[in-house]
């Protein structure tokens, strides 16, 4: 197979890789760095490319590893996280002492038109950006990327699977609450 030029990859797949990284690390400069690292790694290991998948799929595969490495390097300070995550404890005012809902949940009218959908996406992104960092990371790693449990615990500093499940559930409660306030109750 002939050597391909990483500069061509940059033109052809740069945006694709950038979007992929940006969604997961939520920082423009980090995402740009990851694209660069991925293209360099692709260039160095080109002889390992078997041609079984497309070049773009292969590059995204490399990028995935780079993203995981990024999380590993920036492992969160666990103490700081716990105070962040426990701050303004949402569960306390969603449930009473017996663990039942304090207020009735309203039925959501799902966004139907295209314009509606666009505005909703904005709110959705805003609510994600309001989550404590580790909670947002967890949402992406576990519920979108399907990173295996042990690796997720290791990367994000959870001591047990159970701690991870509980935190993921709290993350969803928080996200739901934010959407409810800023979108569904506005209607």
């Amino acid at each position, binding site marked *: 197979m002939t050597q391909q*030029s*990483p*500069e061509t990859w*940059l033109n052809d797949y*740069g*945006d694709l890789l*950038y*979007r*992929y990284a*940006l*969604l997961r690390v939520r920082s*423009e400069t980090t995402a*740009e760095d990851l*694209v*660069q690292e991925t*293209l*360099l790694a692709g*260039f*160095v290991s080109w002889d390992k490319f078997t041609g079984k998948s497309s070049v773009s799929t292969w590059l995204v595969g490399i990028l995935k590893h780079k993203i995981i490495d990024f999380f590993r390097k920036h492992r969160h300070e666990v103490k700081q996280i716990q105070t962040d995550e426990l701050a303004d404890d949402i*569960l306390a005012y969603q*449930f009473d002492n*017996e*663990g*039942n*809902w304090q207020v*009735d*949940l*309203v*039925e*959501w009218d*799902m966004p139907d038109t295209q314009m509606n959908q666009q505005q*909703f*996406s904005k709110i*959705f*992104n805003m609510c994600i950006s309001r989550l404590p960092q580790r909670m947002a990371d967890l*949402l992406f790693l*576990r*519920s*979108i990327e*399907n990173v295996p*449990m042990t690796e997720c615990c290791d990367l994000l500093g959870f001591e047990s699977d159970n701690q991870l*499940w*509980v935190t*993921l*559930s709290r993350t*969803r*409660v928080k*996200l*739901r609450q934010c*959407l409810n306030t800023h979108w569904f109750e506005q209607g």
Partner: protein
Amino acid sequence: MRHCKQIVDLVSQEMESKLPWSIRMEVKMHLLMCKNCHRYAKQLKFMQAELNTLEQNLNTVSLAEPAKERIKKTLTLAINESTND
């Protein structure tokens, strides 16, 4: 009987892992009887679907020109170095 707060955690966990049959049945029964938890479960599913489409919504985002130039320079440098070896 589990209370709503526990069901909320189980509904979330069920989205990524397979729960034992007896617990799944318990959750199912609870959701049939409890309007709030039923709505909660439905809303989580909707949120998950939205998460999965975030990528498509980024369609208009692209690498900034200066970043592209910078990356291109680095790549060219690396390629030249490796061919000089």
